[in-house]
């Protein structure tokens, strides 16, 4: 077996193994010198991203990839002597998982590049990078796994690492307060998930998602499990009215971490979609559950954006916008779910709504990451996060201002940036479902633009303030990190159709097609 075969066969597990290795060798590298450590983390992140892209390429070209731990062959999901039951831990990477892997890889690389200079003023960075890689492990694990208990484990790894990073700069206790709230809430959510896993195991004697999906009866116990999972994962992705931890955690975490926390929330969103589409699909009452998700979405959009407008802390404001944008994804995919049982409506607009929601996940990760990174660059240079104290920075931080404008226009859905493409898909398909929802979505976009006009004006516009006379442009690695994300925002905005065709439509198909997922693991259809 050649090296490239080895990589291709083992890509799903390497996706988790490489960041784990990077995480735990990071303190050792730090002992040698900080230069070696920086090369180590950057190199390992690039390798991880390369593996993610190889895996995603393979998934999009040849279909779902499974990796079975400890089996004779990597794709032998059902041991020969087990009587047709997949007993091993399994990674199932279908198009939707690969889609999330790509997001995580891109944001991971740019955020790490950014961290190299953003964090360079602080000491004890070994712990920072170790936790950062553990977050990457958590996200890759959550989106790749095909085993519900494994999902729980990665969820907890992600929560632990995120909480550690949120509290990383103690900040007079504020950051620790945010981390405490985030962590206790997510632990409570994780216990809900664990109960749901127990219910599945008790009923179906299986932990494999495909196996549970195949045996799904939608009994009373399954309903309880569904509710526990939906509530816990909606809380983790920050849907209103379970969003309270989001502004606290997003605003107090170091900016580079916040950009990655967006991806972490989306991994929970992926979990939510995986549960409702792959595990339950049409065995459950799709209309009811779809409407629950739509209501979460509409509340998130409206409350998120209206709470953002009066905020005075730049990152807290952006955090509320993150809540608001999550609402679009929930709305789009929720509409897709609500009409899933009806083939006519699904092909008329339901599938398009799902594509819009999923495309928005990608776009959101890019422009929201970009916005948090620009906020971080501003805070890095002027040392305050209070919007009232800012002004006139456009004179000195020109590139940061351009990147901020790109991000702000994208989040507000202004053409030709990527936010517009996905929002257009959501508006037009949701309008056919229920015009009122589409109108709410558009109003929210307008308010988003209004809110970012406020930020733009108060940060960059106005005369050069005397207290910021000697502020310089952000350092180059930070600009490159932002530049990668900004380039993708523009590129995806200018050429949306190829992206939708190559990445988004397969992902939406993979999500809606429960039979295909089961067949890829259990064989046969």
């Amino acid at each position, binding site marked *: 077996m050649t090296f490239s075969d080895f990589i291709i066969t083992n890509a799903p597990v390497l996706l988790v193994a490489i960041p784990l290795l990077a995480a735990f060798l990071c303190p050792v590298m730090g002992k040698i010198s900080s230069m070696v450590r920086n090369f180590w983390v950057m190199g390992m992140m690039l390798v991880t991203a390369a593996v993610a892209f190889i895996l995603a390429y393979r998934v999009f070209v040849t279909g779902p990839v499974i990796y079975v731990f400890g089996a004779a062959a990597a794709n032998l999901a059902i041991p020969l002597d087990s009587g047709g039951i997949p007993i091993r831990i399994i990674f199932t990477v279908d198009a939707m998982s690969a889609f999330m892997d790509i997001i995580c890889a891109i944001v991971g690389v740019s955020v790490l590049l950014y961290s190299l200079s953003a964090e360079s003023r602080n000491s004890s960075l070994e712990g920072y990078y170790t936790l950062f890689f553990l977050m990457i492990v958590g996200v890759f694990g959550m989106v790749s796994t095909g085993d519900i208990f494994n999902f729980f484990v990665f969820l907890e790894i992600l929560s632990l690492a995120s909480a550690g990073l949120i509290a990383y700069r103690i900040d007079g*206790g504020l950051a620790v307060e945010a981390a405490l709230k985030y962590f206790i809430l997510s*632990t409570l959510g994780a216990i809900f998930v*664990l*109960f749901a896993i*127990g219910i599945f*195991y008790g009923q179906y004697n299986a932990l494999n998602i495909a196996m549970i999906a195949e045996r799904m009866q939608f009994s009373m116990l399954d309903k309880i499990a569904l509710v526990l999972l939906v509530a816990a994962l909606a809380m983790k992705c920050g849907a209103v009215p379970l969003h309270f931890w989001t502004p*606290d955690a997003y605003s107090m975490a170091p900016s580079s971490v916040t950009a990655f926390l967006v991806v972490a929330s989306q991994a929970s969103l992926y979990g939510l979609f995986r549960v409702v589409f792959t595990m339950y699909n049409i065995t459950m009452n799709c209309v009811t559950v779809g409407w629950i998700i739509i209501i979460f979405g509409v509340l998130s959009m409206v409350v998120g954006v209206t709470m953002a407008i009066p905020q005075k802390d730049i990152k807290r404001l952006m955090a509320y916008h993150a809540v608001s944008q999550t609402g679009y994804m929930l709305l789009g995919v929720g509409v897709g779910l609500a009409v899933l049982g009806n083939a006519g409506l699904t092909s008329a607009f339901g599938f398009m709504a799902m594509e819009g929601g999923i495309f928005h996940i990608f776009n959101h990760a890019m422009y929201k990451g970009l916005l948090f990174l620009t906020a971080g660059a501003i805070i890095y240079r002027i040392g305050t996060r209070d919007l009232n104290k800012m002004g006139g920075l456009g004179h000195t931080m020109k590139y940061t201002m351009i990147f901020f404008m790109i991000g702000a226009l994208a989040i507000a859905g202004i053409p030709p940036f990527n936010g517009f493409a996905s929002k257009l898909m959501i508006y037009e398909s949701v309008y056919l479902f229920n015009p009122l929802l589409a109108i709410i979505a558009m109003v929210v976009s307008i308010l988003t633009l209004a809110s970012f006009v406020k930020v733009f004006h108060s940060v960059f516009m106005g005369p050069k303030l005397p207290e910021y006379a000697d502020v310089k442009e952000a350092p180059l690695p930070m600009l490159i990190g932002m530049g990668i994300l900004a380039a993708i925002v523009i590129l995806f905005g200018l050429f949306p159709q190829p992206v939708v065709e190559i990445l988004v439509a397969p992902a939406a198909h993979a999500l809606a097609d429960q039979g295909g997922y089961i067949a890829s693991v259990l064989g046969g259809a």
Partner: protein
Amino acid sequence: MLWNLPFITVVILTLIGLVTVLLKKNIIKILLGINILNSAANLFLITLGYREGGVAPIYTLAPSDLMVLPTPQALVLTSIVIGVATSALVLSFAIVIQKKYGTVDIDKIRRLQG
């Protein structure tokens, strides 16, 4: 009836845990509530795998007719490890907050709001 006793315990523990988490104001007590909830979940999993009269699934030469299911035990082991990590992290947060805020009362730890 006796076979149901563990499940009844799970329900009681869950309720105790939830009430503790929702009504107590001290961070340490909230953590204890979470630990009780975690124990309830663990007990739930372990009970699901129990087969009356079964032997422990660790002995190669055991009579192969009836064994306790091994998977839930592995799950619970993992879950306990995660629970320990959780407790350690929350306790360390509590220490820092006690140092910086001078209190562990959750009602007073609310500088981030609005």
